């Protein structure tokens, strides 16, 4: 087990190094100079842009040799300093991420986890019940293959504008002040619901289809047939099937949770809901080196952590992994 873990850790460290290096390099070699991009939109007195430009170049140290910038980047990374955003100057990247990421988490984590749990249950049910399958499969396919943008607009139009139950945008009403009180929490919940619901529904279908197919596959494997011929009860066979079928789903769940940082860009666009995803797209559009770096750094760390967690969980839920590393198989 120690061997298994140490090998994994080494691989992750190497991956981290290369990912972070790429993350540093790509925006800098991509076309588009973030500072002149920012400046061209300002309306200032002629000559004012030149003053701002030299101010920014100095502030961000962009006049230093690239190699020096690269080493400086690693140095500050280990100090926990992600730098200052160019497009959102003078806000530090870390506080931009901190302010925004909470909105991604409250929308995405419940949507992912609940859709995973319910999707797997429904999928497993659909896999063993022909009758339910006939009804559920079209629904799953509809949910998973409808373009999110269109689907969310439809839901927003129906529940928001036609029925007028839920507000169509933002995190809370314009007349609300954030505070620890019932009125605000209720208002916040109403605004949270449609972004959550749409994400929950579109993901539900995918999980369910995956699980259903796994169950059908597992119940047709040799071990299942063998158990059947031994006279094992169907429930038992299904339980074994579920245990095997859940393995790829666990990986999928971990990756989904790991990419929470990249946010639900489309959700945020359709509902003008705050969050990191949209910020990240904007950062890329404006080639904001530091904000891109910061967002992707988090993404890299989260994905690696998620994968690592899966690796550990697999040791518990899949005995084959455990045994292969302890040399038993």
């Amino acid at each position, binding site marked *: 087990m120690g061997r298994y873990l140490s090998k994994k850790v080494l691989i992750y460290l190497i991956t981290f190094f290369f990912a972070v290096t790429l993350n540093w390099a790509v925006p800098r070699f*991509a*076309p*588009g*100079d973030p500072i*002149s*991009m920012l*400046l*061209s*939109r*300002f*309306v*200032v*007195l*002629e*000559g*004012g*842009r030149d*003053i*701002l*430009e*030299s*101010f920014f170049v100095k502030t961000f140290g962009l006049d230093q040799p690239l190699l020096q910038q690269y080493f400086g980047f690693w140095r500050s990374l280990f100090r926990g300093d992600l730098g200052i955003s160019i*497009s*959102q*100057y*003078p*806000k530090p990247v870390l506080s*931009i991420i901190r302010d925004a990421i909470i*909105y991604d988490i409250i929308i995405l984590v419940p949507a992912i986890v609940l859709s995973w749990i319910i999707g797997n249950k429904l999928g497993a049910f659909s896999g063993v019940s022909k009758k339910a399958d006939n009804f559920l499969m079209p629904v799953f396919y509809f949910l998973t293959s409808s373009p999110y943008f269109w689907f969310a607009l439809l839901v*927003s139009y129906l529940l*928001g*504008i036609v029925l*007028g139950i839920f*507000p*169509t*945008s*933002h*995190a809370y*009403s*314009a*007349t609300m*002040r*954030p*505070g*620890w*009180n*019932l*009125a*605000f*929490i209720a208002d916040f919940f109403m605004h949270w619901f449609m972004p959550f619901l749409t994400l929950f529904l579109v993901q539900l279908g995918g999980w369910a289809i995956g699980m259903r197919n796994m169950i059908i596959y597992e119940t047709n494997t040799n071990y299942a047939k063998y158990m059947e011929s031994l006279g094992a009860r169907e429930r038992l066979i299904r339980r074994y099937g579920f245990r095997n079928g859940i393995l790829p789903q666990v990986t999928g769940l971990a990756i989904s949770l790991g990419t929470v940082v990249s946010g639900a860009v489309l959700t945020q666009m*359709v509902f*003008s*809901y*705050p*969050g990191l995803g*949209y*910020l990240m797209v904007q950062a890329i*559009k*404006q*080639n904001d080196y530091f904000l891109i770096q910061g967002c992707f750094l988090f993404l890299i760390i989260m994905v690696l952590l998620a994968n690592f967690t899966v690796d550990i969980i697999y040791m518990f839920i899949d005995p084959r992994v455990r045994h292969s590393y302890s040399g038993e198989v």
Partner: protein
Amino acid sequence: MKARWIVLAVVVSLVLGSTAVLAAERNQTLIVGGGTWSQATSWNPLYPNCANGIRGLVYETLFAYSPLTNEHKPWLAESGGWISDNVYEVKLRRNIYFSDGQPLTAADVVFTYELARDNELTYTPLWRNLREVKAVDNYTVQFIFDSPNYQEWQIELYTRDILPKHIWENVPGEDLMVITNDDPVGSGPYKKLLAGPDRNVWVRDDNWWGNAVFGQPKPVEIVDMIIYENNVALGMLMQRTLDLSNYFIPGVPAIKDLYGLTTWYDGPPYMISANVAMLVLNSQRKPLDDAKFRRALAFAVNPEIIVERVFERMVPVSDSTGLFGGWTEYRDAQVAEEYGFWYDPDLAKQMLADAGYVDKNGDGWIDMPDGSPIDFEIIVPSGWTDWMESIRIIAEAFRAIGINANPAFPDAGLYDERIQTGDFDMCINNYGTGISGSPFSYWNWVANHNINRTHVTEGNYGRYDNQELFDLIYKFNQLPPLSDESLAVASEIQKILLVEMPAIPFWLNGMWAQSTSQYWTNWPTADNPVGYPCSWANNWQFGTVEMLINLQPAQ
């Protein structure tokens, strides 16, 4: 046991908390959108990317400016004028106070300007010909110039936020653009209340000095929402969770009556014009280096089709000179008549043929006089749907007269990089063509002299090089507004721009505005011009504050 106490505590605090909602009522709140695109990160008026509303709501300028009437309205100033060739004198109003109760006097004005003399700020270039800013007494300031840029001064008068000396004198020079100024103290009608990731909220300052002079703004709070997509803005208008939208929303002419939306004009062009959208031609590339070729292009396109198909008549076609609003005071009708352009594809073809551009190899496309082929790419940023559609129409028009032109849509960042470094054939652009107090800003953008550099950021992306024109624009800046000489120079500039055609003005982009009347009425319109319905950054002093004063709560 412990868990039960926690639950109890939570419930009690929730119930207690629910009585502590301090927000203004909906019918005292004005919700706007369209001017803020990302979370505010700075409230520092010295940094140009500071929160929308800092200029106008919190800090104020000496004058306001109305693009509708082209008038400078005395704001902090009571009056102002040139008392000699090189001295501009401002008389300040009495009884102006900052929100911390300190009076605003001549010393604050002098300080604001000297700050840019002693430090590198965006308005430091003023000091290239400003000699001294002098407080004659507590309420009189004199600006003494070496050789005044009269035209630029017209713009400066409504652009500079007057800062409280007693606060900013304590900020070290190197921090002037760096500090975020989280608690801005200005003289304006509103104060910062809160800034969230999806909104900025401003609260009325009931002690505003202007209440006695101009009247009190009606909304107790202004909530400026960040809205990522124009269809969200439309949804909010329908739900009445947005009072004023400053987004370009396709389809407004068709739905405005259905949803009770107010626009400036009831019929076309619906919107006030805000800036000139031009086809910029890269005069560093063949055959766009040939003025005859550039001019012929202007005759090939029918901008009416763009206005009709893309904008549903929400924008008007531009005048040949590109002048609109107050700038038209300088328009030379004779020059426009003689050198203007209009849609005439046959004439365009003839002009090209006369200049030697014909199809030499018989492939259907016009070639260079030496026989080498011509093909162009027209670029606009990807995702700017209205402009994307426009250049499809323009490319089609060029192809109709035998010029091989194709639209392309690079990402916004790449678009900026390409136009700034001159790596393009043609592009649509309007960055620096916004309405202002002087056509100088327009001409100095279209034909800026500062083109010999890697990144061109002051306009003239096509790098059109004509020292005579540059000199005329410089000279125009140094002539008193509407003087005979300034009009003569203006005519000369218009003529050169039309004959040389470095960029072709096609249509006037709108100051998009749609409002709903569920909570607020008396919106400014063409028939009832009680302000300027615009929540864009740096536009609040264009008459938006007057709109706030004239709004009426709906019954």
